[in-house]
């Protein structure tokens, strides 16, 4: 697979950060089609960019034979987005707290923390095929 592939409400990219903008354009497009308000679109787009960054870099380790997929659904008043990679998974409870004094001036380690702050629900599931992170945000 090379360029972004769209199938219904899902977009897939090879594991390279050069495709971050394509996922953002697709997700922002769908959310505008759903008439979500701009500030919420930004919160969701920020969160998706965090998780795609992680899936490309930590999950698939930038192996561009591996794929990152993002799918999006409207369920009642909720937007539900799934980000999938083909990596080893991780334990979100084991992540160090970016607010700790010794981490405050580090330049990484805030991604999952920000997603948790911006989204209503974050669920990380590790399977033998990879990691599926599901985020949910109410749009009313």
């Amino acid at each position: 697979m090379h360029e972004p592939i769209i199938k219904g409400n899902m977009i897939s990219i090879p594991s390279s950060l050069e495709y971050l903008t394509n996922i953002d354009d697709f997700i922002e497009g769908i959310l505008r089609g759903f008439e979500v308000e701009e500030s919420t679109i930004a919160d969701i787009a920020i969160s998706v960019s965090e998780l795609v960054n992680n899936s490309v870099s930590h999950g698939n380790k930038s192996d561009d034979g591996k794929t990152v997929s993002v799918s999006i659904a409207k369920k009642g008043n909720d937007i539900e987005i799934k980000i999938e990679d083909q990596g080893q998974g991780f334990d979100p409870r084991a992540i160090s707290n970016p607010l700790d004094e010794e981490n405050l001036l580090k330049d990484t380690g805030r991604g999952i923390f920000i997603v948790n702050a911006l989204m209503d629900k974050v669920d990380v599931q590790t399977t033998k095929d990879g990691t599926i992170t599901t985020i949910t945000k109410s749009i009313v």
Partner: protein
Amino acid sequence: MKLTDREENGVIILEPNGKIMGGPDASLLHDKLYEFIDQDKKKVVVDLSGVDWMNSTGLGILISSYTTLRNNGGKLKLANVTEKIRSLLVITKLEPVFESYDTIADAVKSFDE
């Protein structure tokens, strides 16, 4: 993200534009900063008015730019922090780290004090 820069009263003003989400241009700002440090220009204002949003990669770039300048005897300040970015700075407890100003003029002037 696109990056332009200019100089005002010996202060470098960096203007990133668009979204700062990582990927190919994540290092643009940091590279530019090193150029200026090499020229002994170490008073820097980052104008955020044109930034729609940033993620933790963007925050990381701001932090590392801030510490790089500080370690080289310079200073990085922020101007025109939008509401979306301010709330990210607040939840990550980074807000007190950065000196920030409502206008570029105020930020530039602050270096004289």
